[in-house]
């Protein structure tokens, strides 16, 4: 599935948060969105997945005009792992993941055995089989994030949007989550903070600064010391990590 978000403008109150940003995700491409806190990454993503309505611009998933289609139609194709996943009620992990089937269900349609198989598969992919009866509230941050990922996998989207999915997670969970997403083999658009992770997983990167796309291209082309400095206002040098053979970053030098 291809995503084409063109010339988006988003205003909240009087402040223009996104100014003329365009983002493209090709079929099965893993695209990263990087940039400092408050640069508009989340807002940009929200305007793509219909949580916010942009003032102008267009969003297309293949032929589907996202801004003009119903939430249901969009959510059958597009899954989102968001930042904020707390709630005042409690469900079990399995019930939580089963909610991922919602977009594919008519209002009165019961869950079929297919749905349970899909949920089972999502639990397996996120290694949550032993957690199915656990209460969601009792889980740690990393486990909760895996549950949300499992729910999004159960949604069977062809494009997944992740908004800083690895926030607050330890190194192992960061790798687990991103590897799990990568293995799905679908198009992905992810806002990421960790540049080394971005280099490892992304096929293409958009760097956002002050609501505009500052640079875009292959990770090694975008993540130059100059760009990183301009984005984050911190001195930075890059090197080839002798172990991973990926770009490494040394900050503040």
């Amino acid at each position, binding site marked *: 599935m291809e995503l084409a978000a063109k010339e988006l403008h988003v205003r909240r109150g009087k402040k223009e948060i996104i100014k003329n940003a365009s983002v493209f995700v090709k079929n099965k491409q893993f695209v990263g969105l990087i940039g400092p806190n408050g640069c508009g990454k989340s807002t940009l993503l929200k305007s793509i997945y219909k949580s916010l309505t942009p003032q102008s611009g267009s969003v297309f998933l293949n032929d589907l005009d996202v801004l003009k289609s119903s*939430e249901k139609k969009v959510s059958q194709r597009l899954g989102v792992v*968001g930042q904020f*996943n707390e*709630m*005042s*009620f409690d*469900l*079990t992990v399995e019930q939580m993941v089963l909610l991922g089937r919602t977009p594919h269900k008519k*209002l009165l349609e019961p869950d079929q055995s297919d749905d349970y198989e899909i949920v089972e598969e999502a639990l397996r992919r996120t290694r949550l089989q032993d957690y199915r*009866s656990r209460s969601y509230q009792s889980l740690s941050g990393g486990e909760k994030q895996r549950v949300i990922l499992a729910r999004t996998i159960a949604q069977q989207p062809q494009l997944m949007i992740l908004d800083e999915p690895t926030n607050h997670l330890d190194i192992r969970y960061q790798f687990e989550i991103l590897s799990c997403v990568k293995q799905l083999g679908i198009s992905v658009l992810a806002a990421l903070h960790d540049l080394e992770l971005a280099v490892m997983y992304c096929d293409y990167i958009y760097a956002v600064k002050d609501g505009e796309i500052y640079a875009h291209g292959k990770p090694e082309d975008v993540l130059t010391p100059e760009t990183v400095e301009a984005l984050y206002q911190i001195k930075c040098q890059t090197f080839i990590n002798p172990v991973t053979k990926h770009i490494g970053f040394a900050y503040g030098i």
Partner: protein
Amino acid sequence: MQRQESRGVTGYFYYPIILLLLFLIAVSAVYSVSIGQVHIPFGKSMNILLHVLTNGKLGSSSAVGNESYFNIIYQIRMPRVIFALLIGIGLSLCGTVMQAVVQNPLADPYIIGISSGASLGATVAILIGFGSSALFANFGVAFGAFAGAVVTSAAVLLLSSIGGKATSVKLVLSGVVVGAFCSSLSSLVIYFANNAEGVQQVAFWSMGSLAPSSWEKVPILAIVVLLGSGIFLFQHRVLNTMLLGDESAVTLGINLSVFRKTYMVLAALITGTMVAYSGTIGFVGLIVPHICRGLFGADHRRLMPATLLLGGLFLIWADILSRILIPNVDLPIGIITSVIGSPLFIYMIVKKGYNFGG
């Protein structure tokens, strides 16, 4: 494929528990019919009940030979039990729905100002409205309360939609504001009314009572409550998604603000009807969904049927207590539900590990 049930003991015993609740409701209803201020021997009550239920085929009213017994059972106690059952169902239903709608387990059916709106309507009807000629006054109070409930909830909805989406926080705050405004208006009416009898009537009304139940009122209440239950029993998918909040709901294809408004209008209509007939009966809509979440989890598919049945059962027993607790006194049922409800609620808050439905 083997599916593991989710809620420990109650997971495996869910359907037996539902059956048990149904059975208890039936038994309690029969018991409730047989007791009251006028002592009617149990055998005779059963005879009359059988006679009525089987349309004269079984049991016998003539054998019992007491017209006034028959009237007490048939005209007073039976509609009253049905009222208790229906209002218990309705309050728990609206409580569960409101809690999901405002994403707050502390919400009750009256959260959007319905009780104070209904009180204002009833106060106006009693003190200014239709005078005190018996029958018409009664109708006037019900109408006033219903109108008050519907108007306030509409006002709350409008107020909370100003400037964009109606979020749950805005809903709750608007409910508080509109409620306070209605209460002050009620006080104003009472202050200037200079009508001691009427004021007492207002006070009595606001305590909530099943005493005004009658067969004429059953059909409307039954239709409203059962239709409402019928609708919401099949909304579990949306209700569950509501628990996740607006943001996640949109990504699962459900635009909450539309459903939220629809559900609130429905709940307001159901609550308004109940309030019109029986005043505000507190704590049922708060406590029953809570208990059920503790027992069955927050998944509405399992929660809803259990909540409705437990609510009905709870109110039947509250009604029984209101009639037998003090001999020869028919306590307003609102007092009973609050007396049972508040300590229960405190217990649930204090109890360690209670986390709103897990």
